[in-house]
């Protein structure tokens, strides 16, 4: 009989595990736990130097033609997930937990460390404004934010975004900006009063990327390999998991797919199957912590109650991708020594949308250049010329809106065991973006409405809200401490419990909340002796 079992090894599961170990409890983590299973070329140095000397078919496209996923299916899976290196992250998802989608393109992970293996590592503190509708306040999370900042190594700066992003305590220096991002930022600095009058604020992102060597991990070397291999400078929860396993502070059992539980007076019996062979297997514990992600945690709960009727709410941030062209950078050589993920953040207190929007301004240097080939409207050879001469003067902004900007999706379990998710198409009114285009023109960057790409619902991969926490909880809801209604020893530690999803990336907050939930459970266990 284990004291605590955690299901899932993603960001929330590992944050909960970390807190349990701090409280002297050794949890058992149950996980499918897929790891890298294909031979990826071992690469060093800089991506563009490497490309000049090596055939990069295996690295960039892959023996299984992973990078052709979108071309073969006509889909728009985030480019990072189509890299051969990232194949293991979504491996087996459709077999283990098939989903019938209607207007919702779900991306799931059963990898060790979960979807965070492919995250952009944007790690932001929710403040009280972000936590509107939650039964907790920022002060309940601040202690955990501080601890996570130490554990992860988050870079950022004291700048105009600090009022939104919170304390700068323990932050590492910010990442070095690319030429394009630096130009944008300098232009903002020169006229910031005017921008702020319109509700626009720009600054450095808070990212889990080391800018200094730390705890055996080396700092960002601006090699552009972000999409193509695991970089020690980019934090993933898997790093903490490996550390806890090595220190013997957690028991980790992989190859286990949890389906549900039975709760009795003696404790909880977890019903699972082995991934190899599909054999039933059971585990027993006093307290069960579900952290399998908003979709799969909901599935485990619905399956436990054999509920094929209920349609749970599933929240996601609607998102837009907006490419920008910087005329002043036109003709410049490609900036081959840059950080390939988020360079700058933009926050927009929008009167048009009546909410706060968050933009992440990214460089285009990490993906294959060919990814952009069909984004240009000219003839084939001319598009190649644009890739070479125009693309180096472009940036892309991913703009997130709060989940409340559109109708939520609905998730239910079917009798055949498959999930069914019905989503609304991303129908953000592009005309409302006029202010953003005007602002960027003032910054020296140009874009046009017809270039804006609406990220299909489900592919922003910010899922939440299936089992929301409430001051007074009801069926398929949790209490303030993550305890599932009607199940006195079952707790939810992942983003399922978020009743709202502001535009700000939820990664750090879901980890802090998981630690808060774990702390409450640990206190109960320890006080019971």
């Amino acid at each position, binding site marked *: 009989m284990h004291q605590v079992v955690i299901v899932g090894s993603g960001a929330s599961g590992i944050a909960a595990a970390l807190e349990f170990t701090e409280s002297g409890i050794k949890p058992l983590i149950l996980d499918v736990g897929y790891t890298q299973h294909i031979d990826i070329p071992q690469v060093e140095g800089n991506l563009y130097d490497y490309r000049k000397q090596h055939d990069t078919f295996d690295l960039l496209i892959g023996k299984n033609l992973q990078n052709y996923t979108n071309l073969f299916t006509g889909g728009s899976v985030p480019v990072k997930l189509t890299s051969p290196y990232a194949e293991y992250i979504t491996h087996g998802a459709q077999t283990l937990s098939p989903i019938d989608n209607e207007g919702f393109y779900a991306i799931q992970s059963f990898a060790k460390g979960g979807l965070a293996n492919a995250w952009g590592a944007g790690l932001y503190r929710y403040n009280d404004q972000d936590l509107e509708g939650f039964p907790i306040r920022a002060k309940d999370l601040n202690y955990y934010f501080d601890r996570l900042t130490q554990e992860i190594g988050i870079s950022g700066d004291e700048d105009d975004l600090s009022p939104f992003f919170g304390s700068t305590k323990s932050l590492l220096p910010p990442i070095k900006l690319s030429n394009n991002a630096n130009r944008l930022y300098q232009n903002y600095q020169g006229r910031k009063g005017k921008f702020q009058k319109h509700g626009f604020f720009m600054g450095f992102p808070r990212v889990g990327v080391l800018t200094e060597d730390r705890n055996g991990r080396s700092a960002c070397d601006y090699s552009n390999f972000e999409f193509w291999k695991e970089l020690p400078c980019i934090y993933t929860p898997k790093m903490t998991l490996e550390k806890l396993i090595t220190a013997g502070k957690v028991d980790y059992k992989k190859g286990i797919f949890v389906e549900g539980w039975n709760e009795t007076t003696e404790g909880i019996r977890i019903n699972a199957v082995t991934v190899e062979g599909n054999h039933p297997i059971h585990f027993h514990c006093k307290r069960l912590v579900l952290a399998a992600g908003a979709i799969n945690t909901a599935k485990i709960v619905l399956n436990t109650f054999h509920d094929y009727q209920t349609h749970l709410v599933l929240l996601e941030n609607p998102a837009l991708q907006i490419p920008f062209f910087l005329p002043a950078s036109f003709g410049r050589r490609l900036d081959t020594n840059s950080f390939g993920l988020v360079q700058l953040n933009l926050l927009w207190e929008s009167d048009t949308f009546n909410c706060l929007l968050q933009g992440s301004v990214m460089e285009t240097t990490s993906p294959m250049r*060919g990814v952009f080939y069909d984004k240009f409207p000219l003839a084939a050879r001319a598009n190649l*010329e644009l890739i070479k001469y125009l693309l180096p003067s472009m940036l892309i902004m991913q703009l997130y809106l709060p989940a409340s900007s559109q109708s939520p999706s609905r998730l239910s379990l079917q009798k055949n065991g498959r999930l069914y998710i019905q989503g609304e198409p991303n129908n953000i009114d592009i005309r409302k973006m006029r202010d953003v285009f005007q602002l960027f023109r003032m910054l020296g960057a140009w874009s046009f409405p017809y270039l804006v790409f609406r990220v299909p619902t489900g592919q922003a991969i910010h899922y939440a809200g299936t089992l929301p926490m409430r001051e007074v909880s009801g069926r398929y809801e949790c209490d303030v401490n993550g305890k599932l209604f009607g199940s006195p020893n079952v707790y939810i530690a992942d983003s399922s419990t978020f009743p709202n999803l502001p535009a700000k990336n939820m990664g750090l907050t879901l980890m802090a909340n998981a630690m808060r939930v774990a702390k409450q459970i640990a206190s109960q266990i320890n006080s019971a002796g």
Partner: protein
Amino acid sequence: MDNFIKLEAQKIYRSLFRQDAPEIVISRFQGISERLEENLSLVDKDRYYQIIRKVNDLEALEIACRITKKMPLLSRKFHAMVYLAETLPVNQHYFVNDRTNFIKAARIVFGSIIWTGYKFIKGIWLITKIKGEWKSQ
């Protein structure tokens, strides 16, 4: 190797890079091409390869088809070939500008727009010609 695919690979590669495709690109293109054609009926596939065989200027045909939303398979094959070509060290200079030169970039981008206009008109003429030939058969 299927001669049609080989011919197609050569034509697409020449359209993009003005030179013959290396053997490694052709052999890799075969598997990719088959995957791209998976949902094509035999009749459509036969018709597609008839067009590929007949038309020499696939770049013109492709831009006209893309704009008029015809034969999306051809555009996908061009895109697939761009990916393949990018993985070869010898092609890096097609994708990466390593010298800052505003005048050259402006000249090339302006030229690319003119080039596209010319290719589009030619492509429309090719589509009309192919349609005419099929009607007369």
